[in-house]
């Protein structure tokens, strides 16, 4: 209690000198907590990833569960990714036509659309859509299993949960993301061409021929296959968040949210590194 009779919660009701003495340690403590939490999270993620890597390379292999997850991540994300890709194709088409017309470079339209969709928007939109759909699903499913002791039951049945639950989901994301990216790319190019054709007729053959003129392996293949890294991030973060959940329904909700938010954030941050890496390695 302070001499004014107030309770000294975090130094709020103390004189300035006293308040500084109480506030600064509490702020320092808070920051130290954040700092510790940050490193603890990454440390735990590293250990989790190591357990998953060990589980992936050692038998028995969970083929049945992997096929189920490939279907879950791949086939069931197909319509959503195709739709998102289609929307992106139309947006780029409308925007590019307007911008290119201003500079008298309308002939560059096919090239602009193809490069924008395949190199930038296709991979990114696929990553974000899958992060939202699959990341949240994995996070919530595993978290729900964790809080109802189903993961403990798997472990008690002498089955490695990293192998059965995490490795299969992460592998499915890694394998399916590049394929889904191709779907988004194809869908985006198709709708982009269609949107352009409605305003100014352009044959599909001509669109493809000029769009891919001078296309090289380095221009298209690395941006598509970099999404395998997105898949790794989405699957890893979601599995990790799900399997470390504590605390009932609230914990499940938190795991689902964290899976999407952190997965999407790390995916965008990783893209910064990946773009630079591709430019250096595949000039």
């Amino acid at each position, binding site marked *: 209690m302070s001499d004014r009779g107030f309770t000294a919660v975090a130094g709020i009701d103390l004189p300035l000198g006293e308040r500084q003495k109480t506030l600064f340690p509490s702020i320092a403590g808070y920051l130290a907590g954040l700092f510790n939490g940050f490193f603890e999270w990454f440390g735990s993620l590293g250990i989790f990833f190591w357990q998953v890597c060990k589980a992936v390379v050692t038998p028995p292999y969970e083929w049945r569960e992997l096929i189920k997850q490939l279907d879950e991540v791949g086939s069931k994300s197909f319509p959503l990714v195709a739709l998102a890709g289609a929307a992106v194709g139309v947006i780029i088409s409308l925007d590019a036509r307007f911008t290119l017309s201003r500079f008298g470079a309308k002939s560059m339209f096919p090239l602009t659309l193809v490069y924008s969709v395949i190199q930038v928007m296709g991979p990114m939109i696929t990553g974000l859509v899958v992060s939202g759909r699959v990341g949240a699903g994995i996070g919530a499913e595993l978290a729900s299993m964790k809080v109802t002791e189903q993961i403990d*039951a798997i472990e*008690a049945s*002498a089955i490695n949960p990293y192998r059965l639950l995490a490795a299969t989901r992460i592998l499915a994301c890694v394998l399916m993301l590049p394929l889904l990216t191709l779907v988004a790319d194809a869908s985006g190019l198709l709708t982009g061409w269609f949107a352009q054709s409605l305003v100014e007729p352009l044959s599909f053959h001509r669109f493809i021929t000029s769009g891919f003129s001078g296309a090289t392996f380095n221009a298209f293949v690395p941006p598509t296959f970099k999404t395998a890294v997105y898949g790794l991030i989405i699957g890893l973060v979601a599995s990790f968040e799900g399997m470390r959940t504590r605390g009932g329904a609230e914990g499940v909700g938190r795991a689902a949210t964290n899976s999407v938010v952190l997965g999407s954030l790390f995916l965008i941050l990783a893209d910064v590194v990946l773009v630079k890496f591709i430019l250096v390695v595949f000039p």
Partner: protein
Amino acid sequence: MATTYDIAGMQEEREDSGHAPVVAVENLHKAFGSHIVLNGISLSVSRGETLAVLGRSGTGKSVLLRLIIGLEKPDSGAIRIHGQTIVGLGLDQLSEIRKKMGFLFQHAALYDSLTVGENVAFPLRHHRREMSRAEREDCVKQLLAEVGMERDVDKMPSDISGGMQKRVGLARALALKPEILLLDEPTAGLDPISSGEIDELILKLQRERQMASIVVTHDLHSARTIANRLALLDRGNVVVEGSFEDLQQSNIELVKEFLKQS
């Protein structure tokens, strides 16, 4: 002050008499943060024996079972299964030992996306890969018949009652023919008739399979029915261990209080 039995002495006695403990826990300590859950507990169970671990809520009974099956790691102390220390083993080494154990969780922990039959088949599908589908289905039917659930093979866990879920959990725990059975509150939350049925079932299985069993419960009636030995836990330690008659004759205040309240 409560006096504890000479557990180490009792273990030596059992080993001398040819009943080597299947599960032995020695001087086990476990704390979560500053909260001490187990404080140097020692217990052992031999083949064909059922030990009931009693105590108030929060005295570390379930934690003890989770430590024995390796779902938690102790701060110090030893856990031996058939003489082999399990503390510090990797996940795959631990899995080999877990194949000899069956665990019934307090809330059954059935896989909610699988049917009753698939739940029971789950350990078989992973560890008896040589089994054909037909053999596995036969085995599942047999296990479900043992617990009186053979007609519910295609139902989902959400469609059956708590008592039925525990029966299915028990069938799943028995799927790999375990030598050790760990039961966490098998009758908790059940009506007296269902509790009695579960007790009868455990007794029947015990007679037929001669497993080493540890049953965590605060149901004294159930413990008396199914266990050869009882151990009362308080503040992370064994207050008294022995037969039900031993507990009745105990002068320890906590034991008297526990018997009176139960």
